[in-house]
């Protein structure tokens, strides 16, 4: 959540500042409305949005699949069956590292079927990954012969 706030700030502030400046230059008096709107938007995006996003973000493991639910405006649910998992990466950005967090990236054979599990504590990441890999291996072992080939 912290990460999202900082990260969001990184691109939102310059963007909205830019919009404000151009608005003032172009529109004169009316431009201040844009500035006010920008500030309001920035506050919402910085204060409310990361929290809301965090509250809505959840993932859990079912018998068959890794399940995710997320999204404040656009709500998404995804299911990645263990059997289809091809690869799991641990990804850490600079802010992630600062806060001791990591993101697990779970890849399937489909280019669009990749999901990320953000905000996992550094210490937990290997064990979560191991758990997922173990489940994936179990799932593959349960399907003998040519079926074990997911593609």
């Amino acid at each position: 959540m912290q990460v999202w706030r900082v990260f969001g700030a990184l691109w939102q502030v310059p963007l909205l500042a830019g919009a404000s400046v151009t608005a003032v230059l172009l529109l004169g008096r009316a431009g201040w409305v844009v500035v006010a709107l920008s500030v309001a938007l920035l506050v919402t995006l910085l204060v409310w949005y990361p929290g809301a996003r965090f509250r809505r973000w959840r993932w859990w493991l079912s018998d068959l699949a890794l399940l995710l639910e997320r999204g404040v405006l656009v709500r998404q649910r995804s299911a990645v069956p263990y059997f289809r998992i091809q690869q799991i990466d641990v990804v850490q950005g600079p802010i992630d590292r600062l806060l001791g967090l990591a993101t697990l990236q779970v890849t399937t054979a489909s280019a669009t079927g990749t999901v990320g599990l953000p905000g996992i504590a550094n210490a937990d990441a290997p064990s979560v990954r191991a758990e997922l890999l173990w489940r994936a291996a179990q799932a593959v072992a349960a399907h003998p012969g040519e079926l074990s080939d997911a593609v």
Partner: protein
Amino acid sequence: MPSDGLADRRLHPASILLGIDLRQTIQALIFPLVAGFAAGGRVILVILAVFGVVALIGRTLAWQRFSFGFDGEVLRVEEGVLSRSHRALDVARIQQVEIDRGAVARLFGLAALRVETAGSSSEVEVELRVIPLADAEALRDELRRSKAAAGDAASEGEGEHALSPPPAESVLRVPLRHVVLASVTGARLLVFPAIVGVAFQFVGDAFSDWAAERAEDLVEGLLLGRGALDGFGWRLALLGVAATLVASVATAVVVGVLRDAGFRIERVGDDLSVTRGLLSTRSSVVPLRRVQKVEVHRNWLRRLLGFAAVRIHSAGGSGDADRRVTVPLLPERAIDDLLAEVLPGVAGIPALTAHPPAALRRTMFRWLRQAVLIGASAIIAWRYAPFGVPDVVPWLAGALLPLFAVLAVVEYRQLGHGLTARVVAARTGALSVVTSLAPVVKVQAASTRANPLQRRLGLIIVVAHVAGPGGDVVIADTGTERGHWLLDRLTEHAAEPVAPEVRPQVLVMGGPPATADEG
């Protein structure tokens, strides 16, 4: 061909020349050439000659260092002059084998062999370009045989029939008149105008501006409705339009026939073998077990005539339009038979469930938004543009609204999806209707999403993620409950795949009936 495969060998020496990728070369050279000619004559010729010699030496070295071999399990390729690369490709991983013969290659009895695997890189995994045709066919058959043997070993079947090449059984033949019809009713009609457009650009840029100016005058006169056109001018313009039309149709037919003449699909063992082309022929082998997705395309013209085009996607690395397997045209009644052949255990397009009436509001919203955007920009252009925009433009923009509303209703009518024990299907599109089908065994993951508007309308989008460059199966705007139900079913199918029996080749079409799920 001995069953222990091929010893290491080289490409045909002709590959020094024929192996050059013409398209790439032209793309690389076009700019320096044009610039050079603009700069001045003699020097450029010298530079070109030097370049040619260097390239020739490079090609020769590359040919010398390129070798490949197949030992019955692994296809090995060694190449590279400065940085050497060794590749080993396991036969079980192969998605598609293709023999490609350009006009020149056919003249000399040569062919290019392409092998694709399920990588996500956009390049072909292995390309042997060029080798003698007999070698290419032998290697293809050898790969196919080894693959079948490997598959049988894995599924504990007896691998006896793998030893003798199975007979080819015709699945589909597209007669020439259908190829012609496909060209005339498809996007290929635009080939000629596109070429003319590009040529026009070049002509206008490089040589005299006279023709371009004339044409511009003509177009401007037309647009502004000024009296620029007298009786003679009108006749000329009509003649021009008619000529363009005729030329477009002719080009489309020629391009289509060159590309797809003699299109046929055969069943060889557990593979589909697709052959097409008039001057340069191409034959691809798609293992039935590797088919990820099938799309049935029907634009409005073809719908009227009762035809459709069918596109077969495997998980091959390159999503190049040229390499996809597309049946140019087949009668609608033949679709189900083809699907039964391509998707094992699927009897045809399943019964599709219509979407809730709320979906109409969303298609309407999307089409009207489009109309309003176009209309607004047209009106802004008409009002403020520095050049004269004729007064009809805003009216035309206004006429878009009812037109797009009708399209929205059409699109809603076409929306549909179906899920059986074997296949997931979705139909979308207003003018060009696309029905996508993916075998549920090939669904890699599933997801749903809904934006605020959709949530208010109780709608949701369901996506069945599929491997390969063919894209996913997207079920747009179904009811929320139904959507979550679909997500759960898809997840279960993806987690517990039950592979359908690939129909034994000798039997007549049938297979287990696809059970329709009730919503």
